[in-house]
């Protein structure tokens, strides 16, 4: 595979990126000038900011093509290789892909560790429960979501079953969870999908689906991100409900006899 030089790639990417950023720049400018009828404050800083966005997005996209996609695909290929499975791919059942699940879980877990908004949710839940619950459970949930996504690709179970089941759980939980946590919970679905994680996970899924016999990337390659979004919602709400329950029990014990 011959490859265009880095400079040329960068130039092409820069042109494409300019088009990507144009709409939001236009939107902000037009509304600022025409509808609000004000000149934007510190124009120079804003323009400098746009230049940074352009350059940054360009570099990121080129790096994505060169590093993040190949990383995800190479890992998928090597983890599902017969050498590691110990059996011929055609004969392998879903139990043989243990390392794939371990890897996917580890990716999910490691992303969740670094995520500030998850930490905030965990602290809040810890507070409500009077220290009975810790943040670990939440991270495990995100990891489980990603690992389950790979399991689905290996077994070939249709994605809608997983999603349907997951959202049924969410709906039931929404009725019982403390109200203040619900928006936070729905939002936390997005946290497991940082800009760096998404390409790696997407490439991992597509790579797995193309390596494992009987799976097609077209049908089975996608869906891991969706599951990684679903599980934190379930985890946060379950977590908060449990935290509240524990906290109430704790409080009941503390104020024994007082009617409240």
């Amino acid at each position, binding site marked *: 595979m011959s490859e265009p030089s880095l400079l040329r790639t960068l130039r092409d990417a820069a042109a494409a990126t300019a088009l990507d950023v144009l709409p939001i720049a236009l939107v902000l400018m037009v509304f600022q000038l025409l509808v*609000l009828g004000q000149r934007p*404050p510190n124009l120079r800083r804003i323009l400098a900011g746009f230049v*940074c966005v352009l350059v940054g997005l360009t570099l990121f996209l080129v790096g994505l093509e060169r*590093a993040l996609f*190949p990383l995800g695909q190479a890992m998928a290929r090597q983890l599902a290789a017969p050498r590691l499975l110990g059996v011929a791919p055609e004969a392998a059942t879903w139990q043989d892909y243990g390392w794939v699940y371990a890897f996917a879980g580890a990716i999910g877990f490691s992303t969740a560790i670094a995520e500030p908004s998850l930490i905030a949710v965990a602290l809040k839940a810890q507070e409500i429960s009077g220290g009975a619950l810790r943040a670990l459970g939440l991270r495990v949930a995100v990891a489980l979501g990603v690992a389950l996504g790979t399991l689905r690709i290996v077994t070939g179970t249709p994605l809608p079953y997983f999603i349907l089941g997951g959202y049924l759980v969410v709906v039931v939980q929404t009725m019982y969870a403390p109200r203040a946590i619900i*928006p936070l919970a729905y939002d936390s*679905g997005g946290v497991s999908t940082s800009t760096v994680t*998404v390409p790696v996970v997407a490439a991992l899924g597509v790579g797995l689906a193309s390596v494992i016999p009987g799976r097609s990337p077209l049908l089975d390659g996608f869906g891991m991100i969706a599951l990684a979004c679903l599980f934190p919602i379930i985890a946060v709400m379950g977590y908060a409900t449990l935290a509240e329950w524990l906290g109430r029990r704790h409080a009941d014990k503390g104020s024994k006899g007082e009617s409240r």
Partner: protein
Amino acid sequence: VRLFRDALRDLTPILLVIAFFQGVVLRQPFPDLERVLGGLVLVVVGMALFVKGLESGLFPLGESMAHAFARKGSLAALLAFAFCLGFGTTVAEPALIAVAGEAARIARDGGAIGAEQAGGYALRLRLTVAASVGVALVLGVLRILKGWSLPGLIVGGYVLVLALTSFAPRTIIGVAYDSGGVTTSTITVPLVTALGVGLASVIRGRSPLLDGFGLIAFASLTPILFVLIFGIVSLGGR
């Protein structure tokens, strides 16, 4: 410096995991190592610059405008702004660009679309998602103004998703579900949250905590719906 650290913080855990599996489990050299390392440097520098640019340019502007519109704009202007904001931010979302490109490549390799259509497919996919986020914001703003219940709308939305899933071509389903998560990353979330919280704090009787955040929940629901419809229209129903 802080931004480089943040970008590294996003990347390091993943790299550690990959390095661990390479070294301990697989014990084989990584293919094309130099190129990948070079690419990683680009990713880190790119992310840092990108976020820096957002923080110094886009976010302050977007936030002040969101507040200004929430306070005095007419309803039509506010809704138009909400739509354009959602559309514009989503088109520039790096994670979406990545996934749309991958989806188009797979669709081409799998023969679902012709080779020469791949570029246009990725672009149309992105525009579809962008429009859906725009619609999500319009709906979300209306919801905050009228005080509709969030869980009711969300549950209704997912019922629709499930209904559409049974018509949609199987090849689009995974991509559709994924695009719900993709839209809620770097650019969209801060601007959209600013709009929601600004609105909720201006209107009497709305709590920023409860009403402000619901916008994101919409923004991750409508892309699924729109991409499913996109699949039915462009690839044909089942």
